């Protein structure tokens, strides 16, 4: 696994996306769909690796399903199943939004 010094898991074959077009998973609203570009967790390589194991791998499409009543955590649909993450973890997943 190509884990960088910053704990980044990056797609080897992914087209280069300008930084400005990236959107953190945590900032998407329910109903949005986005493609994972990279998972970056500064100082927490464990988090980056675990998000990868949960299915948040580069190139994977993620859908925001719903927020908890107190707005955190949020349920995501990824690789055919549903998993919830807190904002802190979802902020590590950088995506490009998919047009519906």
């Amino acid at each position, binding site marked *: 696994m190509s884990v960088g010094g910053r704990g980044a898991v990056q797609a080897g074959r992914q087209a280069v996306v300008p930084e400005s077009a990236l959107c953190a998973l945590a900032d998407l609203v329910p109903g949005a769909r986005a493609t994972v570009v990279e998972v970056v967790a500064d100082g927490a390589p464990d988090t980056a690796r*675990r998000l990868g194991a949960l299915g948040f791998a580069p190139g994977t499409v993620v859908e925001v399903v719903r927020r908890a009543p107190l707005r955190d955590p949020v349920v995501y649909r*990824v690789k055919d199943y549903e998993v919830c993450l807190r904002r802190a973890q979802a902020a590590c997943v950088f995506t490009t939004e998919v047009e519906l």
Partner: protein
Amino acid sequence: MTAGCHEPGGAGAVVAEDARIALVGSPNAGKTSVFNALTGLHAKTGNYPGVTVSRYVGSCRAGGRGHVIEDLPGTYSLEPISPDEQITVDVLDGRLDGTPRPDALLVVVDATTLRRSLTLVAQVLSRALPTCVVVTFTDELSLRQGHLDPDALSRALGLPVLPVVGHRGLGIGQVRERIAAWRSWPVPALAPPTDPAELDAWAESVLTFADYRPAERHKATQRLDAVLLHPVWGTAVFFAVMMAFFQTVFNLAAPLQGYVESLSGRLSHLIAGHVTNRWLSGLLGDAIIGGVGGVLVFVPQIMLLFLLLALLEGVGYLSRAAFLMDRVMARAGLEGRAFVALLSSFACAIPGILATRTLPSAKDRLATMMAAPLMTCSARLPVYVLLIGLLVEPSARIGPFGAQGLIMFGLYLLGAVSAMTAAWVIKKVTDRGGAAMPFFMEMPPYRLPAPRAVLLAMWSSARAFLRKCSTVIVAASIALWLALNLPLHSPAQLQAAGVDTGDSVAVSAYTVDHSYAADLGRLVSPVFDPLGFDWRINVGVLSAQSARETFVATLGQVAAAQSPDHPTDALRTMTNQDRSHAGQVIFTAPTIAALLVYFAYALQCMATVAVIRRETGTWKWPTIAFTYLTVTAWLMAYLAHTITAAVTGG
């Protein structure tokens, strides 16, 4: 098929032990039902040495030989981030002392989450052990219009692939046949790629080859979640479920508890009527029947609680409750799943502590365990009822509310707030240095659990409770009875002391007054004097050290009241006999307040201490819990005594 794989006469003993086979899979993959179906009800539970991780080992007879099956902790990846996952990796690598490396692996994957699960399969393949894949929930996959060709998957992976429906036992026979031939399982020659992008491509190619079509979204889950997780309706349903939970645990269990109580009462009378030896009848009736009865009274409640928890878990609501409460629990540095553990602690801290096993973070688990004994458990109820009855009249009102109910509510609130505060403090202390564990929780679809699986889950929790706790409480109540009735006094001694030997109440009052327990109660009086306790309360508090509810019975015995179960009237008028406070009423408002607060905080439950010891694997944490709770109890009781004295001018 589901009745276990022991051939008649096997009786669970492993003969000619052949292979050690480990079950590997992610949580929720159905690993436990496969394990239960393979090993029957003969699994042994324990702990891995030195860690808070439960170990499940069972035996399975296949092909005339006994095989050891070990259910490894569930993991999403072999790159561990929690102690449980570390154990799984260490066992697979043969790095764990006392646990030999398994001879072969059964990888359990959920057919509906195959796309994600192949990452774990790939990591397991790199371990180069003989491997077989078990695919669960294949029925659900086809119900939701998904498809998988197990034979093609087998060819793509180069491993045997067996579809099963674990909770119904379908396909378990084939798994057992395969286990008999474990030596023929291939050892993966070429490990799949490890680079995430290449791994993804590998997984996709495997899925395409296996003609995999993912399951459609579960319609019922979508519809239910739209309501149950809705900001307004979801919150309303959550509180309704919690209300129903408490109503069931307290109201439905109450008549059942009444039956148990009257049964043990009748047994006691039977013994009193037929056993003429005062000593034997006392030991049998008061100590043993009383002690066992004291535990059995809680069994209906605890069974109901476990049943409800197993049902809510099996249906999938507990992960929703955890999802809804996560933000609230985050305030105390915990996560949603800790809410479920603290919820169980309202009935009894023991299932609450057992429920911390669902927490992936070891720090969260410890913090929750340390907080769980503060939740108002059912053993505190009889004590609170007695003391509140002494404090205020049933007719007393504060505003529109009854004073008794309000005080009871206040004590529940005190327990919950203190538990959250304790968890917050412990997390603050243990979090120094280490990075916080990421939070994630799978939201499985709602499922109708198999009744057998629910009953099994209920029974395994209840059995552990019964076995561990009945011994402690029975031993403690025998010891207490002996302490209250020794030393022996001959009729001559009694007469010399001016006691009418014909009056049994007077005799027992004299015996208790001059017993070892009384000596002990007087010995510790310097400690409890500032709280306003006299030696009789001290004996009650000391006896309640093993189990809180014995306080009521002990005070009854000590006060030599006519009815030991309702000592209220006798206690109300009880006065202090010690020289310095002679003639003063013992149960004054400040003393009762101090006692209530003491019981709210103190860890007076040896069963809880034993369970914390078992779950953490060391004496360190039960010692910490005991010390901090007892010290806090004393300080808070002193505070309550001082404040109440100032307010009432007593």
